[in-house]
């Protein structure tokens, strides 16, 4: 509008000017208004002029022109430098405008021809435009908006008050205003000096394209449940694999990190556990290729561009026998055309133990020992049990074993990537090194990875590309034993006189050697993954919309583990072991797609034919009895006793899949899919093939005309789907009865024997999950509130179950297709912009998942399976046990003698649930499940100017787990115990902890405890340097952050961590590791 007004005014001015000839007034006017638009009105006319001037001053040129024509020049000599030299060629017939434009081409002089013969000169000023940027809906100013001069890389950003001012090169300049979450706005300067802009929120994220199985789809066209992982979870977090970042951030996805050992992986369960014995892990698909070997450690989080989680039966149905546990699609970064972008990202920082489960202090240890002796009716001769402790006790010498086995940890990651390309060839290459020094001595993880993703348009109808990566995972190192460190007597002896580790700290309690001895072993744990995916995509020009893609993937995944323990590690003969596993996996996929739009009808058809094969070869070498420890692993032939092993497994899969997507006017959406899979591990006596169909419908309600009246509603979509998918995740060869080999000796010489090892089930088939999903996607108030609510109900039948058999059979169990489970759940994700001002904004992302799992049928006879702890109508992972109601006290001894005659005062008192006045196995009841009732995550993001603060809290509720940490009594005479557990004595008469009597848990009570927790999982404070500063430094982008992880845990659990699985027992368990908190400083630098 302003523009039109301005033009009118100019017209008037011109008219007015043309009628007036007053030089002084004109100059005045020109100087005040600026000369910008006036030249447009000059009528060009031809003139003949002969100018051939080399290295003349402008002044000389003026004189020449004035001599040959009737034009006169008018200017202020203080503003116009007429001494500058110019070059003019021979011109001949020309117009005055052409002539003048040549003359002033390289000057800052602006000219105007007035009244056909007066040439007015003025200095060409660099113009300045200023203004304020506001949100179109709220009117709130927006800081940090990029204001760019179109066609250049020059620009500024709005300040804290939303204001900007920018120098423009000429009046034709177009300014581009852009800001994340808003639609970019282009404004032509057109002579204005003040340009206020209102930006509209970009609620068209619905046009975002998301990756789905075998292709991509517009988010608005989705019919299934496909959740994208927020981008904020993919960066600025010190995680060693992406699953750790996923935890709590996506509804419907439960990530449990059972061990925090550097380099360890998490368990992922999508929408509850369907299966009992077969794997519950989702299918991972990396750049379109299903991952059949390797682990998520092999995918460098820095290389990931997006992650989508497919959850409902229809979206996963196209993965057939591998879909029922959900599918996680990971796309890695690829090149884009343009100048190369070089990115360096790094973080580093310390790690420390959290949730420390402290052993008893020296004083408490002695008190405990004396009490235990008394409670076991043993005569106390000393305050501590063993000889070496006595000396230390007398000398008051103690060892803090937890301190001795631990150290400050450190984590660092460095990543360098270069991407770029031309229109036809694009590349993304990256290299990364991650190193984590564990908080326990000897633990470490180091990963080196490289990736090269290349796409090339060979012709206009053919594209080829590769995704190649190499990963070297290394967890080498002998390590300390945490469990034993907590069990060591504080009066134990750590070092001998020579400063070496003392073998048996509590001599002669030889069962408990020094927990640091592992540091004297040499251990390697190495896994590499070499993967190459290649594709050819052909779009024949004779059928528009048709596309054929051939995907070929190959993975080589070798693992090398070895260890040597010799005399210095309390192994008096020296033992060496090496094991190699080589996994080969290939896949070939033919994908045909066809897209067609006919008016409002849009159709997309996908077809697939694929084959996949996976082979594993393994071998192992063992040797012992070496002359000395010099050679360690390097000459196993030197061991007097040598044994070897090897193995081979193979599985193969053939699949066909078809899918039709149809949409009408972007309002009504339909997806039909069917997949047929044949799997080698099934059907030695039945069919090997299974077919999995699905249907899904969607309705974009907000696209209907009648919805236009509800202007607050930006988007409303209803979705529903039904589908079937399968689970084949069992080991191969389960259909066959097998024998394992054993060895025996005759006259001292080895002989090989065979023993029955597996009862095969020739009728094995895949388990099937069928179910329904209903969902609503909504967005209101200009994107201030958006989210999704989904409800699902899936039923899994023909469970692949390692079903326990009566041992009378001679076999403990058999793999079978029995039983049914059901998962019903609700998932809510909500994103709100709570607060937004010019400097400050606050955004909340919340997700909530409640899943109810239950076994609906077992053997078809409506009976529970007590032996396996499967109960009809109850969740899996049931806790079925006695109900602890207290401790038998002396005052109840008479009652105890009749109710629980085997018990002693100080033992656990259980509830007589069947009220028959006697405690027996009938009193066990269902107490709960280790599967959480609900999980959730909440992310709050605060932005202030260039600072961003991200706080992520994760919660897991309603978990009941057996707690082995409390079950100590049988070793209480010998070892140290956890400080916080406590025990009964005749004087303190605890009503929660039992006495230290050996055998005091004759019923095998599992100490079920509440393992629910909430965790401040991570907090990240980052600062992004303003572009204006970076431009001066010629840097494309720079941000720095501080990030802390596992900052605090709220839980009632007694133990190292409610989430971790901690194994008790005196043998070494690699996975026993404390939870760690880390604090890192990170930097992301982009060069252009």
């Amino acid at each position, binding site marked *: 509008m302003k523009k039109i007004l301005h033009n009118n005014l100019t017209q008037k001015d011109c008219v007015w000017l043309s009628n007036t000839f007053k030089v002084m007034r004109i100059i005045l006017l020109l100087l005040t208004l600026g000369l910008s638009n006036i030249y447009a009105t000059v009528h060009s006319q031809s003139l003949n002029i002969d100018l051939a001037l080399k290295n003349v001053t402008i002044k000389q040129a003026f004189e020449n022109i004035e001599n040959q024509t009737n034009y006169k020049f008018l200017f202020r000599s203080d503003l116009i430098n007429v001494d500058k030299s110019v070059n003019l060629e021979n011109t001949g017939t020309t117009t005055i405008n052409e002539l003048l434009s040549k003359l002033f081409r390289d000057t800052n002089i602006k000219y105007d021809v007035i009244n056909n013969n007066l040439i007015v000169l003025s200095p060409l000023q660099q113009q300045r435009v200023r203004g304020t940027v506001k949100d179109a809906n709220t009117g709130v100013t927006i800081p940090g908006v990029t204001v760019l001069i179109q066609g250049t890389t020059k620009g500024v950003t709005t300040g804290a008050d939303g204001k900007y001012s920018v120098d423009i090169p000429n009046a034709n300049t177009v300014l581009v205003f852009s800001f994340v979450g808003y639609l970019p706005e282009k404004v032509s300067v057109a002579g204005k000096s003040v340009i206020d802009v209102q930006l509209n929120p970009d609620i068209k994220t619905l046009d975002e394209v998301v990756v789905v199985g075998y292709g991509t789809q517009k988010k608005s066209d989705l019919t299934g449940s496909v959740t994208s992982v927020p981008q904020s979870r993919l960066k600025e977090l010190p995680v060693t694999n992406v699953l750790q970042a996923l935890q709590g951030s996506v509804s419907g996805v439960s990530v449990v990190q059972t061990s925090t050992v550097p380099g360890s992986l998490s368990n992922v369960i999508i929408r509850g556990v369907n299966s009992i014995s077969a794997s519950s892990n989702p299918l991972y698909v990396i750049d379109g290729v299903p991952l059949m070997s390797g682990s998520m450690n092999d995918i460098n989080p820095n290389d990931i561009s997006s992650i989508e989680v497919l959850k409902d039966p229809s979206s996963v149905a196209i993965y057939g026998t591998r879909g029922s546990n959900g599918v996680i699609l990971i796309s890695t970064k690829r090149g884009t055309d343009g100048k190369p972008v070089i990115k360096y990202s790094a973080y580093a920082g310390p790690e420390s133990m959290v949730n420390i489960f402290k052993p008893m202090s020296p004083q408490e240890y002695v008190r405990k020992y004396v009490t235990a002796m008394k409670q076991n009716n*043993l005569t106390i001769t000393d305050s501590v049990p063993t*000889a070496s402790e006595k000396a230390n006790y007398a000398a008051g010498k103690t060892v803090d074993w937890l301190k001795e086995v631990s150290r400050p940890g450190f984590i660092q990651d460095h990543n360098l990537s270069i991407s770029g390309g031309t229109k036809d060839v694009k590349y993304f290459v990256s290299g990364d090194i991650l190193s984590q020094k564990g908080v326990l001595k000897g633990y470490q993880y180091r990963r080196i990875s490289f990736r090269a993703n290349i796409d090339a348009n060979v012709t206009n109808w053919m594209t080829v590309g590769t995704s190649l990566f190499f990963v070297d995972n290394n967890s080498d190192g002998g390590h300390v034993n945490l469990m034993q460190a907590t069990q060591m007597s504080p009066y134990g002896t750590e070092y001998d006189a020579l400063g070496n580790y003392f073998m048996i700290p509590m001599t*002669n309690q030889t069962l408990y050697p020094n927990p640091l001895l592992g540091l004297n072993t040499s251990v390697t744990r190495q896994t590499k993954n070499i993967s190459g995916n290649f594709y*050819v995509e*052909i779009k024949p020009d004779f059928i528009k919309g048709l596309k054929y893609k*051939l995907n070929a993937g190959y993975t080589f995944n070798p693992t090398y583990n070895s260890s040597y323990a010799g005399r210095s590690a*309390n192994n*008096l*003969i020296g*033992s060496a072991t090496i094991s190699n596993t080589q996994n080969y996996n290939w896949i070939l996929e*033919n994908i045909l797609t066809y897209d067609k739009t006919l008016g409002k009808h849009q159709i997309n058809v996908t077809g697939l*034919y694929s*084959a996949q094969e996976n082979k594993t070869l393994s071998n192992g070498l063992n040797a012992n*009895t070496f002359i000395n420890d010099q050679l360690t692993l390097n000459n196993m032939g030197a061991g007097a*006793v040598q044994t070897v092993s090897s193995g*081979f497994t193979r599985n193969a899969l*053939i699949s066909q899949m078809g899918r039709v997507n149809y949409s009408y006017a972007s309002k009504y959406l339909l997806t039909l899919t069917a997949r047929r899979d044949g799997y*080698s591990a099934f059907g*030695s006596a039945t069919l090997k093939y299974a077919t999995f169909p699905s249907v899904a419908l969607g309705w974009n309600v907000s696209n209907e005309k009648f919805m236009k009246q509800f202007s607050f509603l930006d988007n409303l979509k209803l979705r529903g789907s039904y589908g079937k998918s399968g689970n084949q995740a069992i080991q191969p*060869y389960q259909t*066959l*009865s*097998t*024998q*394992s*080999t*054993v*060895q*025996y000796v*005759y*006259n*001292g010489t*080895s*002989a*090989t*024997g*065979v*023993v*029955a090892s597996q009862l095969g*089930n020739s009728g094995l088939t895949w388990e099937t999950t069928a179910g329904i999903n209903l969902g609503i996607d909504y967005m209101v108030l200009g994107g201030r509130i958006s989210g999704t609510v989904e409800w699902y109900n899936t039923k899994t039948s023909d469970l692949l179950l390692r079903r326990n*058999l*009566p*041992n*009378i*059979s*001679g076999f403990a169990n*058999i793999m079978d297709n029995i039983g049914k489970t059901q998962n019903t759940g609700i998932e809510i994700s909500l994103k709100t912009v709570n607060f937004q001002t010019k400097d400050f904004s606050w955004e909340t992302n919340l997700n909530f998942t409640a899943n109810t799992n239950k076994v609906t049928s077992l053997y078809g*006879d409506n*009976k529970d*399976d007590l*032996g*396996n702890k499967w109960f009809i109508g109850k969740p899996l992972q049931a806790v079925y046990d006695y109900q602890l109601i207290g401790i038998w006290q002396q005052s109840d001894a008479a009652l105890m003698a009749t109710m629980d005659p*085997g018990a002693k005062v100080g033992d656990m008192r259980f509830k007589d649930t069947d009220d028959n006045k006697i405690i*027996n196995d009938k009193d066990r009841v269902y107490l709960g499940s280790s599967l959480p009732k609900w999980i959730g995550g909440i992310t709050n993001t605060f932005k202030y100017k260039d600072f961003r603060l991200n706080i992520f809290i994760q919660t897991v509720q309603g978990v009941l787990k057996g707690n082995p940490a409390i079950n100590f009594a*049988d070793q209480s005479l010998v070892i140290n115990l956890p400080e916080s557990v406590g025990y009964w004595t005749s004087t303190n008469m605890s009503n929660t902890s039992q006495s230290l009597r050996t*055998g005091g848990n*004759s*019923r*095998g009570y599992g100490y079920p405890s509440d393992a629910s927790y909430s965790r401040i999982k991570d907090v990240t404070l980052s600062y992004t340097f303003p572009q204006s500063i970076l431009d001066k430094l010629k840097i494309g982008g720079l941000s720095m952050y501080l990030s802390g992880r596992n900052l605090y845990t709220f839980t009632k659990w007694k133990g190292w961590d409610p989430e971790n699985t901690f194994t008790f027992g005196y043998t*070494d368990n690699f996975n026993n590791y404390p939870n760690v908190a880390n604090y890192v400083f990170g930097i992301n630098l982009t060069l252009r």
Partner: protein
Amino acid sequence: MKKLIIYFSGILIASTLFLGCNKSFLNEELKSTYAPQNTLKDSLGFDAAITGLIFRFRQQWTGEPQGLICVMNVGTDLAISVQPQGVEVPYTNYAALNSQDQGASVYWNWAYTVVNNANFIINAIHDPSNQVGMTATYRNSIEGEARFYRAWAYNFLSILYGGVPLIDKPITAPKTDFVRATPTDVINFIITDLLFATTNCRDIDYISNVIKREGRVCKSAAQQLLAEVYIRAGKSDLAEAQCKNIINSGFFQLTTTRYGVNSTKPGDPFSDMFITGNQRRRQGNKEAIWVLEQEYNVPGGAIFQPGNTTPSDQHRRVWVARYVDITGVDLSDSLGGRGLARMRLSNWALYGLYKPNDMRNSRFNIRRNFWYSSGPKVGQKVVPNPADTLYKLCPYTTKWNNYVAADAFGYADYKDIIMMRLGETYLLMAEAQFNQNHLTDAAATLNTLRARSNATPILPTDVTLDFILDERARELMAEENRRMTLVRTGKLVDRTLTLNSSYQGQGAGIKPYNMLMPIPQSEIDLNKNATLTQNPNY
């Protein structure tokens, strides 16, 4: 170019389609695992299956948990529990013995695993397609051996649990409707198996000299087991006959002179039998009828596995005193390696059982005294603190002494396990004769055995069942499963209460129903299509 690429793609598509059409692509073939249908085909396969069966059988003593051996000895007349590992606790405090008992469950599972492996062999050898290249004599000897192990397992089960489900064929599909057979049916089933075994098993000379695999079961072993089962069946005359068959076979003789690795060192003939390296027939032991072999650090013997106490024999751990806890008494060969004294012989066994001069009570057979081997008092006799006599310096049988310097910790036991010897044959024969009221014969039989140990002869009027059980303790302590003997003879409750219930009330709570172990609750729970009746009071 374009044509070439289309052509190339066509080949790729065709190749994947071809893979799909190739039926064998989805077939499964066992390439690194044996299966019954390919091993139980010829003599090598059947020999391997017998070897596997012995391996499974030996696991009664080489599996977890460590305290399992104690279950067979504590809560009887023989031993008390002093350093319980855990599993044996309900057998000292019988009121706590319930259907979820770990020991009852482990033993049950073990026995049925043996039955299953035997059934595979018995079933396969009857299939004519598996009989190529094997003589009938060979086949019958294999079947006899397998039936022997099956009989042993059912005898074990029926003594400990009463009537149990009888399985005589390999299970090929899940089965959950097992029912208990009557004790009589089980005993008759065992007798049928053993009659086959006594007819068809080879004699020990053939096994030693022709097969050269001494650990294999010989005819005499089957006869000895049959003798015990005949006694159970009330057919003591037949039992006596089986014992006589063994004694008269001429293959075996009581050890009356020194022999073997330590024969020139201090000792006596009885102790020679229990020195590591003296158990096997070819090592000079002519009394042994059946020996389970072990060997230090040989695959199949007992591999030295630091940090891993299983699977390995734990006899030494549970029997040998924990003398290493005494400063100045060091780990040594003569003291028998590292023991934990999970149990200690009862005062009755230590102080009331033997008369003077009984060789079986010599210092070589029961260690009662200790000497300092280091420190200021080196060479002096240890005067124990009374509290230390409970497990640190308690007297113990030396039958399980075993020491290998390289495995000072003693992860495993590397000594052979004597399963049957002629000494026991005399005891069974005496029992059979006593049952027939042939007291003179019984006294003569017992005196033959006692003479070897310089024990004074007894008179026919001295022979009672209790005397025979005393004599079994004197001769077989820590060798036999004492609990089984007492249950078999019906004397468990009586003898436990009278002879061994004074220490901390251990065993004092035993009730007549404790003669039988509980049927494992998990078996009852899993057997959902039929009722597996629990033994009374559990």
